[in-house]
C-alpha cells in the first residue's frame, strides 16, 4: 500500500492505488447529469427571480401610471382643460415643448401673461396705423413732395408692424413652465435679451401671489412669487391668469414630490 495518497508526497517507487476507468467514466456521467440538473435548477431559479422582478417592475409601473392618472385628474379638476390655442394657461399641452426639457420630464402647465396685458399695445398699434389717414387734415403735409410722402408712409407702417410684432413676440415667448420636476421661467425682452431661470420643485420654500389694481381684480390675473432655496432666490410668474389655481397646482406637485422622495421614487 502506498504511504500516502497525496500525489505531491508520493515517491516514484510507490504503488498508487488506481481505480478502474469504467467506474470513473460512470461517475463522470453521473457528475455531468447532476451538474446539468443543477444548472437547470439554477436557470429555473433565475427565470423565477426575473419573473418576480418583472412582476415587481410591472407593479411599480402600474403604480406610477396610476399615480400619474390621479395627478392629472387633480390638476384638471383645479385648472380645467385648455379651450383655445391662444389661451394664457395651457394644461398638459401636446404641442408645446422647450429646448431644455429632459426626455422623461412631463410638462404639467404652461402660463403666459394674461391677454388683457396686450390691450395697451394693441390700442397703440391701432392708433399708429390710423395716423397716416389723419395726416390728410394737416395742411403742411400737402407741401411735401409725393415721393417723400410715400416713403414716409411706408416707413411708418413698417415701424408700426415691427412695434406690434415685437410686443406680440414678447408676450408669446414669455412663458412660465411647471413640469413634474421643476418650475421654469423663460423670458425674451426686447428681442435681444433671453433669460432662463429654473428651480426644482423640492427646492421651493414659499409661494405667494399678488393681485393689485382694478384690471387685475376684474380679470383675475396677477403675479405669483415662488421663493426657492436654489441659486435663483425667486421666480416670478408675472401677470398670469388665475394665480390661486397656479398656487394649488404647485402645492399638489410639491406634495407629490415629497411622496416620491419618501417612497424612493425620485428620478
Amino acid at each position: 500500500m502506498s504511504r500516502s495518497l497525496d500525489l505531491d508526497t508520493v515517491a516514484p517507487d510507490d504503488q498508487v492505488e488506481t481505480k478502474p476507468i469504467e467506474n470513473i467514466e460512470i461517475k463522470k456521467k453521473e457528475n455531468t447529469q447532476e451538474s446539468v440538473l443543477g444548472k437547470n435548477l439554477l436557470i429555473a431559479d433565475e427565470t423565477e427571480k426575473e419573473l418576480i422582478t418583472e412582476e415587481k417592475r410591472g407593479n411599480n409601473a402600474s403604480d406610477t401610471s396610476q399615480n400619474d392618472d390621479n395627478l392629472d385628474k387633480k390638476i384638471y379638476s383645479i385648472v380645467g382643460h385648455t379651450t383655445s390655442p391662444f389661451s394664457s394657461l395651457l394644461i398638459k399641452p401636446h404641442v408645446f415643448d422647450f429646448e431644455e426639457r429632459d426626455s422623461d420630464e412631463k410638462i404639467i402647465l404652461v402660463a403666459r401673461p394674461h391677454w388683457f396685458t396686450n390691450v395697451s399695445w394693441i390700442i397703440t398699434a391701432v392708433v399708429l396705423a390710423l395716423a397716416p389717414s389723419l395726416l390728410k387734415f394737416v395742411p403742411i403735409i400737402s407741401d411735401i413732395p409725393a415721393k417723400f410722402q410715400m416713403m414716409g408712409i411706408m416707413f411708418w407702417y413698417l415701424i408700426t408692424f415691427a412695434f406690434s410684432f415685437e410686443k406680440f413676440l414678447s408676450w408669446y415667448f414669455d412663458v412660465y413652465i411647471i413640469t413634474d420636476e421643476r418650475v421654469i421661467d423663460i423670458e425674451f425682452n426686447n428681442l435681444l435679451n433671453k433669460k432662463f431661470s429654473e428651480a426644482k420643485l423640492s427646492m421651493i420654500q414659499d409661494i405667494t401671489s399678488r393681485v393689485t389694481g382694478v384690471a387685475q381684480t376684474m380679470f383675475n390675473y396677477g403675479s405669483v412669487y415662488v421663493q426657492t432655496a436654489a441659486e435663483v432666490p425667486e421666480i416670478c410668474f408675472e401677470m398670469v391668469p388665475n394665480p390661486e389655481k397656479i398656487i394649488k397646482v404647485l402645492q399638489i406637485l410639491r406634495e407629490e414630490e415629497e411622496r416620491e422622495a419618501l417612497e424612493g421614487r425620485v428620478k
Partner: protein
Amino acid sequence: MMGNLNNYLVLAEKIFGVLGAIIYLIFALVIVKQVGTMSKNIKDKFNGLLIIFSYIHLAAAVLLVFIAWTVL
C-alpha cells in the same frame, strides 16, 4: 448757385433715406434671427406662422431700401 444747393439737398435726402432704410433692414434681419432662436427654444403651434411673418417683414424692408434708392 441755388440750383447747386438744391442738388445737394436732394442728394442729402437720398443718402438719409437709403441709410435709414438700410438700418431698418438690419433691424428686420435681427428680428428674423431672433424669431428663429425663440422658436428653437420654445416650440408651439404658431411658430411657423411667426417665422413667415418675420420673413415678410424682411422682404418689406428690402423693398424699402430698393424704393429709397430708386424713388428718392
